[in-house]
């Protein structure tokens, strides 16, 4: 039976969903609706573009002919504005109506803004879409000093990128530390000191009170009474899920679009995945949004399989981030700053710029921070995901030589949990 599959959103979750649908169903109609001006670009690469380390033609994360080759209809620069669930139709801003049998919402997220006077001045930007990056680059020649509001992952990535353009960058961070959602204080100190050593100024515990200037940005008034001169302000405060389309047609929405284990929304013909969807978090054992590329890809695939009627449950996502500033790499995962430390076992060690921290609960790793030496990150991620009792290898976690071989006894012991086929291949002769 030929179906009409419609996907709103053309980034990681949407494209993976389209690709998976086509892989399993060669006949049906697949339509992707995207409000972007440029197809198939990787949002995460925008800061690399800003930094000048790549050109626009390297932003593609799929082959340029992906839509054509897969016989997928693409509506580009079109915005989906409403959904008629009874008629099963999506309406676009230009009044076009697109019928669906199964609909996927991969509407993504938008930058959080700050509520300060002067935010509408020229020279204030967020970095989320290709147009943002293009506008910033157009203006860069006229700019010497840049203030970045927000010391989280997004703010720091923006700051790092612009510092590569020889701009004087100051990061204004409300929290007492950078990356407060991602790492603990100790890791934050190491990262902040590397940024500062390389010329990026970091001000913690302050926030912008007003953006000053006439037409263009001239500076910032800080809430501690200080002033900061700058010609550009970047707001890098994180993102919020785009849920308007879902809530306007009555789907259940909390922080993000609510989905069940099959990534189905409160309407059985509508699915959601990626930055807009609130899914199960493995480490926290609760629902939340993990607005991350790998999670979006995973969810796009699972949602597609369920749209095809295969009934595949999603194991859940894991919050995880990787950054690299001036050669200092850091990866964090799961619960990195537990609220009640006494409920957890912490194994950590700092040696110069190398810092490792593992957070355990009942002998299972539930979180990790690695700075400087990240080679074991993937192995640990599998231990977190598969909820493995690590009591027998706990003493090895901090060692420089910690590697896959060290967990092989566990792979043998908990065969039923290490489901991926390739694990078996490694223990054939063990």
């Amino acid at each position, binding site marked *: 039976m030929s179906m009409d599959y419609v996907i709103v959103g053309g980034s*990681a979750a949407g494209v*993976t969903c389209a690709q998976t649908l086509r892989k399993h169903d060669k006949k049906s109609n697949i339509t992707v609706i995207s409000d972007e001006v440029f197809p198939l670009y*990787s949002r*995460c*690469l925008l800061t*690399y573009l800003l930094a000048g*380390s*790549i050109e626009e033609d*390297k932003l*593609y*994360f*799929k082959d340029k002919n992906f839509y054509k080759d897969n016989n997928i209809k693409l509506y580009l620069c079109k915005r989906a504005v409403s959904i008629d669930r009874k008629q099963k139709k999506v309406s676009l801003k230009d009044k076009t109506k697109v019928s669906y049998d199964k609909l996927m919402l991969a509407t993504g997220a938008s930058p959080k803004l700050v509520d300060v006077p002067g935010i509408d001045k020229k020279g204030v930007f967020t970095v989320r879409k290709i147009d943002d990056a293009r506008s910033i680059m157009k203006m860069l020649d006229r700019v010497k000093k840049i203030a970045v509001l927000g010391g989280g992952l997004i703010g720091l990535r923006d700051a790092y990128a612009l510092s590569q353009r020889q701009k004087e960058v100051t990061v204004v961070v409300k929290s007492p530390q950078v990356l407060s959602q991602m790492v603990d204080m100790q890791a934050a100190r190491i990262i902040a000191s590397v940024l500062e050593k390389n010329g990026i100024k970091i001000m913690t515990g302050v926030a912008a009170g007003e953006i000053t200037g006439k037409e263009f940005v001239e500076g910032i008034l800080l809430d501690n009474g200080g002033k900061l001169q700058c010609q550009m302000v970047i707001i890098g405060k994180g993102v919020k899920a785009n849920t308007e389309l879902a809530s306007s047609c009555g789907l259940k929405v909390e922080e993000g679009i609510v989905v069940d284990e099959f990534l189905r929304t409160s309407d059985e013909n509508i699915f959601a995945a990626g930055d807009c969807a609130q899914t199960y978090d493995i480490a926290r054992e609760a629902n939340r949004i993990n607005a991350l*590329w*790998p999670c979006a*890809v*995973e969810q796009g*695939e699972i949602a597609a399989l369920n749209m095809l009627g295969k009934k595949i449950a999603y194991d859940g996502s894991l919050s*995880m981030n*990787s950054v*690299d500033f001036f*050669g200092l*790499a850091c*990866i964090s*995962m799961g619960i990195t700053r537990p609220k009640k430390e006494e409920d957890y076992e912490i194994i950590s060690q700092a040696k110069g710029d190398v810092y490792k921290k593992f957070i355990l609960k009942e002998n299972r790793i539930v979180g990790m921070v690695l700075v400087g030496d*990240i*080679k*074991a*990150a*993937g*192995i640990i*991620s*599998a231990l977190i995901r598969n909820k493995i009792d690590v009591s027998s290898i706990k003493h090895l976690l901090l060692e420089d*030589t910690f*590697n*896959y*071989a*060290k967990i*092989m*006894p566990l792979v043998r012991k908990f065969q039923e949990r290490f489901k*991926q*086929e*390739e*694990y078996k*291949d*490694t223990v*054939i*002769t*063990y």
Partner: protein
Amino acid sequence: MAKDLLQKKKTKDIKIYCDITKCVGCKSCELACAVEHSQTKNIFTALREKTLPKKRVRAENVSSKIISLHCQHCEDAPCIKACMSGALSKDEKTGATLHDKDKCVGCWMCVMVCPFGAIVRDVENHIAVKCDLCPDREDFACVVACPTGALFVGTKEEFEKKIKQKKKG
């Protein structure tokens, strides 16, 4: 031997297996891998290259045994899903997990999710490196270099068959 291995390059789902009972941890595989991935492909000149070539295989010890561990070219590869630059992809013909160094930006998302720790950072060039099944040669550098015959290239069935025969013999 080389001819046999050349044939293997075209086979689907081949990868490099290690017979743990034969591996002695001599690290010949690591050395051969680094040399094969150098500019000059010669150990003496490779040492003089601007950036030292990187090995993509590691001999690691587990209890008292040793395993030479490579990229497993996973069928449902987590690294491909995590790659936000499109540098990692699946070769549909051979099943190999391919890495395009020109597309890689060194974000280390693949390092973050590889369950085997088989992707390593090339810090100087700021890109990820992994086993590429030696595209520049007819055979496989590590397998040829292995002095104990611990390394084997082929499909899972072939490897299992070999191990069974060994047990019988």
